[in-house]
């Protein structure tokens, strides 16, 4: 799973896709995930990091991470989505 390399991520949660001109807002944990995806971190490592950082159980993180990534695909922000 990797996201488009040219996505611009701001510190305040503003995401810009220069290919399409679309912009997005993400919450802090969403931004953290996008950053890690941009650094080509593996899904499992990202989930482990989230589990260590946040007050949530693994199942919740697993489920929400899957949902978030599916959302990125839906918004065509992933590499394999063209």
């Amino acid at each position, binding site marked *: 799973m990797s996201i488009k390399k040219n996505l611009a991520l701001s510190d305040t949660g503003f*995401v810009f896709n220069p290919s399409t001109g*679309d*912009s*997005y*807002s*993400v*919450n*802090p*944990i*969403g931004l*953290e*995930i*996008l950053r890690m995806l941009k650094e080509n971190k593996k899904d499992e490592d990202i989930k482990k990091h989230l589990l*260590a*950082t*946040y*007050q*949530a159980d693994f199942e*919740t993180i697993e489920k*929400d*991470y899957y*949902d*978030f990534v*599916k*959302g*990125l695909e*839906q*918004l065509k*922000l992933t590499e394999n989505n063209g």
Partner: protein
Amino acid sequence: MKRQQYERPLIQRINSGIMNKFGTKTEYAPVTHIDDFSVKELIKQYGSPVFVISEKTMRDTYKEANRAFKTRYPKVQFAWSYKTNYINAVCNVFHQEGSWAEVVSGFEYKKALQNGMPGNKIIFNGPDKTDEDLISAINNNSPIHIDHLDELYRLTELADEMKKKPNVAIRVNMDTGIYPMWDRFGFNYENGQAWDAINKIILGDKLELVGLHTHIGTFMLSPSAYAIAANKLADLALGVKKKFGRTIQYIDMGGGFASKNTLKGSYLPGSDTSPDFNQFAEAICTALLNAGFVEKDLPLLVLETGRAMIDDAGYLLGSVIANKRLSDGRRATIMDFGVNILFTAFWYSHKISPAQDFSTYTEDTVLYGPLCMNIDVVRDQITLPPLKKDDHVVVHTVGAYNMTQWMQFISMRPAVVMLGLDGKSHLIRKRETIENIEANEVMPEYLLKFKI
């Protein structure tokens, strides 16, 4: 290192420049308490979902309505519309405040009697009154509001048989300038049916015509329609005085005042657009005062306000069952309450607040109920912070009609709790059980056993 507070990750496209008449974020504060009662504790104690009624709001609303009319007109009487919410504890709060009862069936009539209402303070409306109902109402001296000629003739026969003169009013429908015109209840004013019925009653001399009634519509947003209706009823009352020298004792303006709910498709929220009691009172009272009654003949003004009296006092507390993403990417959240118990979700965009703290991030969500039915949509579009399984929400302004029109469908109906002025929460209707539902079922002997 202490782990940070978790919030579901979310991303949302920014649609700048696109018009959105429904606005964006709607809820800025969680509703953790209602009248100082913790939402979390109420759900813990009574289960989820649970209807909650604020006694304080009920009584405050009654006082506000009463004040609005009594400061403008000398003789005012409210009658609690049983069909709006006939849980006995709810009825009795309004009866304690001074409300009579307004009922529309034999079932409701019995409820009012059992609640201790004197018969002469139970107004009997509705198109369906059985002989048993009419006899009971005649014996109890209740004002019977005649809906159609068949009822008028039957009542005349019963009066003859019982050698009693029942107190009656006629229900009058009319053009008040609103669309659609409600012409199914009672006798029409414009085409002379109402005047004809009045003549039949008075000249027949078997029934005592004590009042005139109208019910011009529901969720009325136009107070001026009530002024027109009051004028037309006053015209009939003055006509009776002129022709027969008799005084009509009361004019009943029915119900229909809008609550603060938001109708689906409305541009602005109901809290901003619905007229308040003062506006309705001003329209009705001014029309009656200026109609031409001499002071001693001024009729009692009866109001059967239901929805506007209780809607604000009712809340539905519920919990999140699951989150999912729809095929087009939209967020969907499944709640543990659906249209089976929140019937008004079909025509209102109910205000729904999270019951726990949340961040400033929100997403557009479709809110579904738990039923295995496609129509079970509580809100087809709402902006909410990310909710997770077992989070709680508070649905506002649900006091009217939901606790009477709810359906026992697929699941049981929830408990109803009153938040008392004594600082305690009181269970006023227990959560239904399978035993309650099956109590009325009968199994034929030959169907008792099967092999499979």
